[in-house]
């Protein structure tokens, strides 16, 4: 499977997924953004500025590092982490927050609005907006805000106006809808900063372009380390780190790309977040994609211990890659993800977020099916500081 099969073709379609399912009033705004992005992306000065900010403000390149003491059983493949948890603010979200704020500034906009689930996109955007002197409004679901009070305080410290959303399921989806409504009324002065490669074209392609730095770096580092991994594993919320990592490896048919979804409380899938494997084709938040909805097309509530995974839609590019078979999916329960995070902290002194814990648990299972001469790369998209409350709670199971 070549790269060409997975680039956006007509009006932002990835295969049959994607598109621009938005209120008509947003069409000219999206058209302007598309032009502005193409213009900036082709401008060496813009790319240089972006690279400089990624290196010195975000803290790239982030290391690739192995975790030999982590596995419970010896003999499996080596697991290495791509450590975007070590960026200065917001984990891997900083990559696209810097890119989109830089673009907004270039397009003459004076403020940004975004939503956040795990808090990371909000922190990244708030920090960058502070650096660029832009106004910043951030929507977060009430349930997510309650679970991650420190993240909310950090966004406010950066000068952002944080709005807590009581609607719907009070998580990422509700926050995204609220941010979209805000943007619809203010699009002449305000840029919407997408945390993930979801939503209407050109957001999926644009966020993927800004996140591709993860995969490019990883490729070079693997050469340095003399590794040729058999599999790349990443937990999927909106899909920003997953697409960022995988994008450098679409064209390597011998490697497995595995997107890990949140299975929620147990394996009964009462409420979960596994829409790539169990969703149905639908139209949600601006794109045709795989969605968790019922037979009447109503969006279903999601549940995951990792707030960043609790989202009923999916990146249209990932939907296409899953449907075509290039990307595989696995589902990991809350308990397995939490256990993986705790064990990594205790054995390696690395505290990752619960989102990454899902990928870690999945990678451990895969590694056991492989030999010790093989390796698996796990995406560590952000640190576990935000999850300390959840991680230190007594387990009820």
């Amino acid at each position, binding site marked *: 499977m070549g790269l060409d099969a997975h680039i956006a073709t007509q009006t932002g379609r990835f295969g049959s997924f994607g598109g621009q*399912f938005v209120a008509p009033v947003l069409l000219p705004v999206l058209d302007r953004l598309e032009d502005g992005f193409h213009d900036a992306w082709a401008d060496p000065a813009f790319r240089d500025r972006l690279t400089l900010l990624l290196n010195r403000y975000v803290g790239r390149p982030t290391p690739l590092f192995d975790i030999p003491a982590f596995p419970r059983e010896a003999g499996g493949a080596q697991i290495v982490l791509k450590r975007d948890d070590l960026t200065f603010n917001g984990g891997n979200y900083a990559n696209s927050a810097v890119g989109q704020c830089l673009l907004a500034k270039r397009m003459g906009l004076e403020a940004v609005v975004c939503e956040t689930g795990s808090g990371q996109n909000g922190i990244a955007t708030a920090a960058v907006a502070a650096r660029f002197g832009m106004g910043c409004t951030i929507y977060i679901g009430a349930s997510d805000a309650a679970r991650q009070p420190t993240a909310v305080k950090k966004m406010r410290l950066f000068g952002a106006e944080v709005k807590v959303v009581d609607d719907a399921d009070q998580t990422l989806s509700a926050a995204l809808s609220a941010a979209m409504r805000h943007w619809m009324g203010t699009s002449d002065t305000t840029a919407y900063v997408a945390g993930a490669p979801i939503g209407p074209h050109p957001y999926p392609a644009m966020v993927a372009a800004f996140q591709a730095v993860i995969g490019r770096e990883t490729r070079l580092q693997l050469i340095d380390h003399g590794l040729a991994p058999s599999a790349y594993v990443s937990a999927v919320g909106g899909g920003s780190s997953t697409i960022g990592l995988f994008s450098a490896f679409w064209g390597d048919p011998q490697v497995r790309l595995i997107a890990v979804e949140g299975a929620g409380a147990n394996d009964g899938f009462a409420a979960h977040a596994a829409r790539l494997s169990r969703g149905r084709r639908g*139209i949600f938040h601006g794109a045709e994609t795989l969605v968790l909805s019922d037979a009447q097309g109503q*969006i279903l509530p999601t549940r995951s211990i990792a707030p960043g995974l609790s989202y009923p839609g999916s990146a249209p590019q990932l939907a296409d890659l899953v449907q075509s078979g290039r990307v595989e999916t696995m589902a990991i329960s809350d308990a397995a993800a939490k256990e993986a995070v705790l064990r990594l902290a205790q054995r390696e002194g690395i505290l990752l977020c619960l989102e990454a814990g899902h990928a870690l648990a999945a990678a451990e299972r895969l590694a056991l099916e492989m030999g010790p001469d093989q390796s698996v790369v796990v995406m560590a998209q952000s640190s576990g500081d935000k999850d300390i409350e959840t991680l230190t709670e007594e387990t009820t199971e």
Partner: protein
Amino acid sequence: MSASIPCEQTTPETQRIAAMFRRLNDAQRPAFVTYTVAGDPSFEACLARLHQFVASGIDMIEIGHPFSDPILDGATIQQANIRALSAGGNLERTLELCAAFRTQDTTTPLILMGYANPLAVMGYERFAARAAAAGVDGLIAGDFPLREAGPLLDALAHHGLYLIPMAAPTLAPKDFTSEHPAVGGFLYCIPVVGPTGGPSASINAIAEGVARCLAESSLPVMVGFGVKTPAMAADVGRVADGVIVATALIDLFQQAAQDDDPASPDFLNYVGQEIGRFRKVIDAAP
């Protein structure tokens, strides 16, 4: 335009929308349209309200099919969606409501209004067939712009339904006009940006928006979003073929529903009075 060439010509069975505009044109009156979410707060109360609308001067009804995530709507219509969903509302029940309405009213145009996902999940062809059978005349799909609507338009055309295009001041004509036979009915002119229930545009801005619509399209032009008072509705009625009042009326009805059973004669009388109050001022406008 991404809309493809349809396999067969649109053959509307009813032409209720065109008949309504002819009737109003003869009477020299603008159309007065309102919106309600199907099944808010119950199937029966909603059905009674629809008939009350017509009895007190509404010419056309937009019926919202409830959705769990009404991203383009402000707080009032979000709450209405929540009430309808908790009463078991969905796209199927909405079509049943339309069919029930049609057993007593064969002339008032019904425009289904809502979001794309329930249509996509039902399947466009199946949806269009069922909507036509239920007596629906057209569809307003807030998150389904013409440039994405090819397969939906073909299905609507097979069953004689219209997709109502939406125009905004910032929109290029290619985004609200189309030669596709399923694009028609009227042009929904939105003079403000932002979700429903938001701020109002000035009457001058509305008049400019309508003039631009009329210059680019041969369809009748209706104005919605931000029309809050009888006086403003009357102003809009002077410059457009019709005026749509949604959030402002739902707010009034909802206040009354706090104290009254929404299916009771008292409540329906109140609905009739408020609709009548708007209608009177709209019709009195020179």
